C-alpha cells in the first residue's frame, strides 16, 4: 500500500513541474503590465521603468523563471504586490475557509444525492424517481452565482432568516483560536457555541449553493450506476438465493455501484474548487478563490501562481485519495496496481 502511494506521488512530480512552468508562462502572457498598474495612472515613464526594474520584470523571461523556481524550492511563493503580504501566509490563512465551505457543500450534496439516486434506482418510475430527475435537471441548469444570489435575496433580503452574506462570522464574534482552521470545528473545540452557531449560519447559504450545483451529477451517476448493477447477474443470483432486499441492495448492489460514483465525486470536487471562486465573490467569503480573482484583476502574479499551484497539489492529493478508496472497495484494482 505504501509503495503504491509513493509511486502515485512520484507520478505527480512531473505534472507539478508542468504546472509550475505553465502558470509562470500564463501569468506572463496575461494582458496588463503590473509595473504600469502599480505606478498608477499619473506616473511618468521613468517611474514605471523604475518599478519594473524593482520587480525584476526587465530581466529575460528564463532568468525570471529560474528565480521563481528557486524561491519556490525554498517555500517562498513571493509577495503579493497589492497587499505586500507573503503569498504563502495568505494562502495558509485563506485555504481553510475555502476548504470548509467546499467540504461542507460536498457533504450536504452527497448526503442528499446518494440516497436520492439509490431510491430512484430501486423504484424506477415512482415519484422519487421523478423527483430525482427534476432535481438533477434543475441543478445542472442553474449557474452557481445565480443560485447564490437567489438564496441571498430570498433568505437574507426577503425573509431575513440568514445573516448578511459578509464573511465567515458575524461581526460580533471573534474568530476562535486556530486549531484546524475550520471555524465549525475550532468553535466547538473552544466550546463557544454562540460562535459555532454564527459560523454555521454564515456557512449554510454558500454551502447550499455549492450543494445544489454538485447534486445533479452525483445523483444522476448514482442512479444510473445502481440501475446497471441491479440488472446484473450477481444481483439476480443474490435474489435467487433469497437474500433480504436490504442485503441485496447494500452489500451486493450499492458497493459495486459506488465505483463510478467515486470517480464522479472526484470530478465534482474539482468543479467545486472552480465554482468556489464565484460563490466566494457572491458571499464575500475570505477564501483563496476570491483572493486569486482579485490578484488576477490587478495583474498580481505571485498570488495567482500560488493559487494555481495550491490547486494542483490538491488535485494530486485528491486523486491519490480516490485511488486508495478504489483499492479499498474493489479488490481487482489492487492487483492491477
Amino acid at each position: 500500500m505504501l509503495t503504491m502511494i509513493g509511486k502515485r506521488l512520484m507520478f505527480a512530480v512531473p505534472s507539478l513541474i508542468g504546472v509550475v512552468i505553465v502558470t509562470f508562462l500564463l501569468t506572463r502572457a496575461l494582458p496588463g503590465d503590473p509595473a504600469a498598474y502599480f505606478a498608477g495612472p499619473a506616473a511618468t515613464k521613468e517611474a514605471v521603468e523604475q518599478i519594473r526594474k524593482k520587480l525584476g520584470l526587465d530581466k529575460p523571461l528564463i532568468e525570471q523563471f529560474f528565480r521563481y523556481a528557486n524561491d519556490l524550492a525554498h517555500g517562498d511563493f513571493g509577495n503579493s504586490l497589492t497587499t505586500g503580504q507573503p503569498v504563502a501566509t495568505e494562502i495558509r490563512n485563506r485555504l481553510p475557509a475555502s476548504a470548509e465551505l467546499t467540504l461542507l457543500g460536498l457533504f450536504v450534496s452527497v448526503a442528499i444525492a446518494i440516497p436520492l439516486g439509490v431510491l430512484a434506482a430501486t423504484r424506477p418510475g415512482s415519484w422519487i424517481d421523478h423527483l430525482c430527475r427534476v432535481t438533477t435537471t434543475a441543478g445542472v441548469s442553474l449557474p452557481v452565482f445565480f443560485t447564490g444570489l437567489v438564496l441571498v435575496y430570498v433568505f437574507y433580503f426577503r425573509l431575513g432568516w440568514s445573516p448578511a452574506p459578509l464573511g465567515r462570522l458575524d461581526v460580533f464574534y471573534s474568530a476562535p483560536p486556530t486549531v484546524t482552521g475550520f471555524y465549525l470545528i475550532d468553535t466547538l473545540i473552544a466550546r463557544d457555541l454562540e460562535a459555532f452557531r454564527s459560523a454555521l449560519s454564515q456557512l449554510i447559504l454558500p454551502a447550499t449553493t455549492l450543494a445544489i450545483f454538485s447534486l445533479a451529477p452525483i445523483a444522476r451517476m448514482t442512479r444510473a450506476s445502481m440501475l446497471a448493477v441491479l440488472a446484473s447477474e450477481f444481483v439476480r443470483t443474490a435474489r435467487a438465493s433469497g437474500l433480504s432486499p436490504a442485503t441485496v441492495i447494500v452489500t451486493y448492489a450499492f458497493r459495486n455501484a459506488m465505483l463510478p460514483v467515486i470517480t464522479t465525486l472526484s470530478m465534482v470536487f474539482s468543479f467545486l474548487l472552480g465554482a468556489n471562486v464565484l460563490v466566494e465573490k457572491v458571499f464575500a467569503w475570505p477564501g483563496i478563490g476570491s483572493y486569486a480573482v482579485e490578484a488576477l484583476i490587478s495583474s498580481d502574479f505571485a498570488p495567482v501562481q500560488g493559487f494555481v499551484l495550491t490547486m494542483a497539489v490538491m488535485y494530486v492529493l485528491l486523486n491519490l485519495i480516490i485511488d486508495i478508496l478504489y483499492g479499498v472497495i474493489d479488490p481487482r484494482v489492487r492487483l492491477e496496481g
Partner: protein
Amino acid sequence: MTAQPLLDVQDLTVEFTTRRGIVKAVQHVNISVAKGETLAIVGESGSGKSVTSYAVMRILDRAGKIAEGSVMFSGIDVKAATEDQMRDLRGREVSMIFQNPRAALNPIRKVGDQIEDVLRTHVQQAQVADHGEKAIEALEQVKIARPRERYHAYPFELSGGMCQRVVIALALACNPQLLIADEPTTGLDVTTQKAVMDLIVELTKRRAMSTILITHDLGLAAAYCDRVVVMEKGRVVETATAADIFANPQHPYTKKLMRATPRLGVSLRDLLPEEESRAAMAGLDPAIHHTSQDPSQLTDPRVKPGRDENPKPLLLVDKLVKEYPRQGATAVLGKLFGRKPPVEPDMFRAVDGISFAIGHGESVGLVGESGCGKSTTSMMVMRLLDQTSGLIQFDGEDIGGIQPAAFARLPQRSRIQMVFQDPTDSLNPRFTAARAIADPIMQLGDIRGRDALRARCEELATMVGLPHNLLDRFPHQLSGGQKARVGIARAIALHPKLVILDEPTAALDVSVQAVVLNLLQDLKARLGMSYLFVSHDLNVVRLLCDRVIVMRTGRIVEEGSSEQVLGDPKDDYTKELLTAIPHPPLPIH
C-alpha cells in the same frame, strides 16, 4: 415417481409489458418434476425456457408477470405466496445456478462471504455453530481444493470452472429440494463442462434432490437427464423420457433440433432440415442460389478443389512463439496485499514453438480449450499481434516480419480475412449491414462509386444468402444468423485466400449453426478459399475441417486428418477431450 410432484407447473403464461405492447414469452406451459427426478428443458434462444424457470422462482423482471396458470411447489402456491414467503423459499428450498458463473458472483466480495450470506439468511444461528465453517464445508463438497484458502478468494482470482463450483456451493449450501441449472456449462470448456455436470449430478443424486437442467445442448440433456421437455417459442412441444425422445422424436421441431446437432457419423448436409438437405445435395441449396456450381463438388463437401495443383502450402507457420511478460506490478502488489508470490518464470509462453501448414483450398481446425494459445496463434497469423519469434509465410511471402500496424495498409491484408466469434460485437452498431460489408472494400478494395459498391454488396449478400432488403438494417434489427452472414460477407468481400474463422458459430443456436456451417462449406468450394477454423467444439470441427490440430498450453499435441485425429486419437489429451463431449444416446437418420 411419487403421486404428487415436487414442482407442478400448470398452464403457465408469462407476459412482459414492453413498449410495443404485451409479449407472451411463455404460453400454457405444463411441466412437472417429481422428487429426485432430473428434468431437462431444451430449446433455442427465445423459446422461453429461462423465463419459465424465473417464473418458478418468481424472480422475473419488473416488466414480467405470471398472467395465467399455477405454479405449485411442494404444496405452496408460488403465484399467491407473499414476497416474504418466496424469499424464504429461494435458496432454501429452490435454488438456481446461472450461465456465466463469473458474472453470477459479486465481483468485490470474497466467495466465502457470499456463501455465508446465504447461510446467514436461511439457517438459524442456533442450528449452526459457525457459518464460516459451514461455508468452508460447502466449498469442500463441490471439490474445491484448499477450501480454507479459497474462502478468501475473490471471483476474479478463480477460473471459470472454479467459479461455477462456487455458484453450485452457494446454491446447495442450504440443502434445497429443487435445483434449477440455467445453462450451467455454456461457455466452459468441454472437460470442465463434464466435471461440473458430473458434480451437479453426483451432489443432487446423493441428496435425492430434483433438478431442472435448462440447456440448448441436446447431447447434454440426453446424457444427464431422466426426462426432456422441448420448448419452442414459449410453448412446450414435446415431453418424453430421455431415451424415448432420441429414439423416437415426435414433434417436427424436436426432429429439426436433433438433425441440426453436430454429432458422430453424419455429414454437414445432414444437419439441415430434410428438404433443404436434399436440395443442397442436388446443388440447389435454396439459401445460396448457386448459379454456376458443379453439382459433383457438392455431393462430397470434403472435396478440396485445386489443392494438388500447387504443392506449396498457402500458409506456413514455423516454430512460432509468443511470450508475454508477467506483470511485475502484480507480483509486487500481490505481496503487499498478502497474496502468494507467483512462482512461474517472468515470461509466459502463450504459444510455444508451433509449426503447421495450410494448403490451398484446405480447411484446418485449430482445437483446444481456453488458454491453450489457439486465439493467440490466429491473431499472429492475422497480423494483429506480433510474434516473439518464428516464421509465418503466406503464399510464399514472409509476412511474419511485417509489423501488425503496417500490415493493415498492405495488399496482403485483403488476402487474409477473419470471421469473428461474436456476430453482434464484431459489427459496428452504427453501421448498416451494407456499410459493414462495404467497409473492407472502401479501405482496401478497388471498387469506387456508390452504385458499384452497392452492387458488390448485393452480390455478396446473395452469396451468403442474406435477403437484399436486410442490407439497410442496423445490427440490432438483425437476428443472430443474419448477423453471422453479414460477418461472413464482410470477410469474403476482398476475395481472400485464407479466412480465419474464430468460433464463428459459438454464439448461434444449433439450427442456425447448421445453416451457417453449410454456407461456409459452400463458399469455400465456390471461391477456393482456405480456412483456419478455431474452435473448442470438436463435433463442428469434424464436420467442416480436412485436418485438425489439437493444442494444449501453447503446444501442438496432435495433428492429422479429421477422421484420424477425432476417430482414432493417439494423444491422451485428445482422448480426454473427445470423451468429455456428451453424446445423444442414438444417432438419428
